[in-house]
């Protein structure tokens, strides 16, 4: 067993599963948005606002946003452990990524509930 303290779920299996579940959620969200753009003939500000005023859409969007953050963390964590052999450099990179993802999530919540 290789000890690890910075991976998403502290377990390879959990990270692996999370990566797949979040991928499916992101795929569903992408397909939905593409469908929305293609299926809406009159795409103006009102249609856009009314879509995001629905609670279900906010839940779906927040879910997609959290999935994106988790997916990106697991992916970039893997990249950093593959290529960054200096512990200092790796930890700084991981901290920057974590901070950026945290900021994106908070920013996203603000956007979603600010409509």
């Amino acid at each position, binding site marked *: 067993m*290789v000890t*690890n303290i910075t991976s998403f779920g502290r*377990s*390879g*299996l959990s990270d692996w599963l999370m990566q797949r579940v979040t991928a499916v959620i992101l795929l569903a969200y992408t397909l939905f948005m593409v469908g929305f753009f293609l299926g809406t003939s009159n795409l103006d500000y009102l249609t856009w606002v009314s879509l995001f005023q629905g609670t279900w859409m906010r839940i779906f969007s927040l879910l997609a946003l959290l999935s994106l953050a988790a997916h990106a963390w697991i992916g970039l964590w893997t990249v950093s*452990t*593959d290529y960054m052999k200096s512990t200092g450099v790796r930890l700084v990179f991981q901290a920057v990524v974590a901070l950026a993802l945290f900021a994106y999530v908070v920013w996203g919540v603000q956007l979603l509930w600010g409509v």
Partner: protein
Amino acid sequence: MLQVSVYRYNPETDEAPSMKDFEIDTQGKDLMVLDVLHLVKEKDSSMTYRRSCREGVCGSDGMNMNGKNGLACITPLSEVVKNGKLILRPLPGLPVIRDLVVDMSLFYEQYERIQPYLINDTPAPAIERLQSPEDRDKLDGLYECILCACCSTACPSFWWNPDKFVGPSGLLQAYRFLIDSRDTATRERLSELDDPFSVFRCRGIMNCVSVCPKGLNPTRAIGHIRDMLLSNAT
């Protein structure tokens, strides 16, 4: 005439590795790469490589031939030579001891880690531990591994983390004992593998499958281990 370019490195005298070219007369025969190496050694006796059985059983002469890992003794020239040129390098990713000889310690350490022996804490029967023919069949495609390291040294995940990722060869062996009906340590074995490196560094690119000289499929074994981990988890 065959152009052979060989990786040369003697850490005691050379500052850096270099490639040395030889012109080898194969007399039009489709020799095995190992035979060509013997002809090279006749020209330059300092040329160093490992070999033993010369028939693909011992796994000593794993090397990189025109960019692809394989056993020199069972690889005919017709399979690897391009434009009349043969480039021989040591297995990638492992420290070079001299010329084509690499230090396999990291590879063996990973092999040791997966406890490549039967663990059974039940009292031993008077005769050998029996196994049904069906259970025995499950070991086919697993037990044949000769530890030549062609697969693990073709795997980028093993290059980046040879101290943490078990590698295709070790994982094939791990599954060989996980699936053995006579082994009682399945749970303990699995718990040793459930971290983000040991198994899950495999990205499924199947380099291991494409180079295995015995035609084995480590990627499939790794998939089975993942399934076992999944069905054992909550």
